């Protein structure tokens, strides 16, 4: 068994792959400050050697890989910046020297100029204890793709050493508010490339990524009432898909990207409806209940809907088959449980629980029904899982302002991200493989 993998087993809880060295609020705005609480006690020691001929590149690939891995909290980066000559093949690597430096694994490689102004990036991940190559890949990319390629390589390293897919190459969406200006933001998971994709003088809430990452559904108050909008990111095209009498809110995508669950009040109370994303007549999910049902979320297999309902008095979390049937109550602890989101493997949900007057993020195992805290509040909201299920992104109130934060699912490692002004809220983690 690999040393690295063995060590990894000790770390099972310490997954903090994200993120956000400086989450810029808009193209011109100030960076968020990042504060990391907790860290893996047993980090995997890894050395990232600068690639042979890397100085030819307009920007360093290994610097981005280093930063991604370091931020994850899972790795201890052994400085290999001065290595000379730079090894590109296993045979050129002095394994004993780097084992002596304490590294378990090492990335080496080279850069070659390719045709048409492209670059070939060759990387090899070496298991120093086993004296063998764990990973060998070549990417032929345009100069503008270098940063994303670096995230891709960091994801491969992460997966190879931990057995869990990385999320360095994903994106997040969130809402910022500064005075009367609301913005729907999209940023890379490392906080770079933040972009306002919709700006409004009216509130925006509940952004939800389409399963392919190409569209975002959200609730906008631009018509003096909440309506559901679907926006295509690469064209900016916006379509109001639900503007029925009353309020329209809480969009959720079916996993096949064909349908939306939305909450409409045209019958009086808040009711979950299903409708084609392309538009069409919404079908009410439950005919009989006069209670308020909201915050629908599809299970990953598309068969179930998780939702919040006050049918039992206070808000609790339920689920029911999308095809119809009985609703099953899932939460019994406390009198306020809201905002359920299923994990990518469908085995757990994350939600907000009011506990001793504090709003905290908790998970519930859908098998044994055990509830475990991820955070301790006091005002934490809007949890969503990373695509690999190892982290939860959420918002919290601090000094009267909203900020974003991420925590490992076991709550042991946390990052908080503070804006110099204004506030950030309603985060949603985008899908993998965008």
């Amino acid at each position: 068994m690999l040393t690295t993998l063995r060590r990894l087993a000790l770390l099972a809880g310490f997954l903090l792959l994200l993120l956000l060295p400086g989450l810029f609020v808009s193209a011109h705005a100030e960076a968020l400050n990042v504060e990391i609480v907790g860290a893996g006690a047993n980090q995997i020691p890894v050395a990232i050697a600068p690639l042979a001929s890397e100085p030819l590149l307009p920007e360093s690939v290994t610097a981005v890989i280093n930063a991604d891995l370091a931020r994850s909290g899972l790795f201890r980066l052994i400085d290999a910046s001065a290595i000379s000559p730079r090894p590109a093949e296993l045979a050129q690597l002095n394994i004993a020297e780097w084992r002596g430096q304490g590294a378990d694994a090492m990335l080496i490689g080279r850069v070659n100029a390719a045709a048409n102004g492209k670059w070939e990036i060759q990387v090899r991940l070496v298991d120093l204890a086993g004296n063998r190559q764990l990973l060998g890949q070549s990417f032929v990319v345009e100069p503008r793709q270098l940063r994303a390629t670096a995230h891709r390589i960091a994801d491969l390293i992460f997966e190879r050493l931990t057995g869990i897919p990385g999320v360095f190459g994903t994106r997040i969406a969130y809402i910022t508010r500064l005075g009367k200006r609301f913005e729907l933001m999209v940023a890379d998971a490392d906080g770079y490339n933040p972009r306002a994709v919709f700006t409004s003088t009216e509130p925006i809430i509940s952004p939800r990524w389409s399963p392919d990452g190409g569209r975002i559904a959200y609730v906008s108050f631009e018509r003096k009432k909440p309506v559901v909008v679907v926006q295509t990111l690469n064209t900016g095209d916006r379509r109001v898909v639900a503007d029925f009498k009353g309020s329209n809110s809480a969009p959720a995508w079916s996993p096949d990207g064909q349908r939306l669950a939305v909450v409409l009040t045209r019958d009086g109370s808040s009711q979950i409806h299903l409708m084609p994303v392309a538009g069409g007549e919404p079908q009410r999910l439950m005919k009989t209940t006069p209670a308020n049902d909201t915050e629908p979320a599809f299970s990953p297999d598309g068969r179930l809907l998780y939702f919040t309902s006050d049918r039992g008095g206070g808000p609790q979390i339920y689920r029911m088959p999308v095809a119809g049937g009985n609703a099953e109550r899932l939460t019994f602890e406390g009198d306020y449980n809201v905002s359920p989101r299923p994990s990518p493997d469908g085995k757990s949900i994350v939600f907000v629980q009011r506990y001793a007057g504090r709003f905290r993020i908790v998970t519930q195992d859908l098998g044994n029904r055990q509830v475990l805290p991820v955070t301790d509040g006091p005002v934490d909201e809007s949890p969503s899982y990373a695509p690999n299920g190892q982290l939860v992104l959420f918002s919290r109130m601090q000094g009267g302002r909203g900020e974003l934060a991420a925590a490992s699912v076991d709550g042991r490692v946390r990052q908080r991200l503070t804006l110099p002004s204004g506030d950030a809220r309603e985060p949603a983690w985008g899908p993998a493989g965008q």
Partner: protein
Amino acid sequence: MKPIHANLLLAAAVMLALAGCASKKPAAGDGAAIEERGASSGSATDGKSSGAGKDDVVSRSLGDDGDGSGDVAGAPSARQIFFDLDQYTVKPEYQGVVQATADFLKSKPKVRVIIQGNTDERGSREYNLSLGQKRAEAVRKALGVLGIGEDRIESVSFGEEKPMSECHDESCWAKNRRADIVYQAR
């Protein structure tokens, strides 16, 4: 390193270009194999299903500065109904506001009203939207009892999004647990 705006499309494009490779197994074992990975310029820019291949376009809503109130001459000035914590029934002290609203609507058949329900800031935004709707519905039903038809009333919710007063204690919260009556000339 300075974030570069244009990187988004490039980063997204290469993710798209590479996404198809994600499920492939990397070269394994002791060999020094290198897998060839092409990121063609075509797949880097067509952006289709991922929608991330091109620059994201910013949309902008200019909104509507008026809130619609005060547009109808002679409409009653009392237009707010406040609610107790976790309560969604119109208290007797506001029956006069409801009655005046109904009387005015009866005298002006072309006027309609929007009832906007609101909550304080505590808890889930979406759940609060449903609670604001309950408050707006309570007012709509009270008007219905006085003979105002559903075709003249729309009850909507702003949830916690439009606080009258912004601070983080009960003095504000009490002001934000309310329904506003907004008159509209047809």
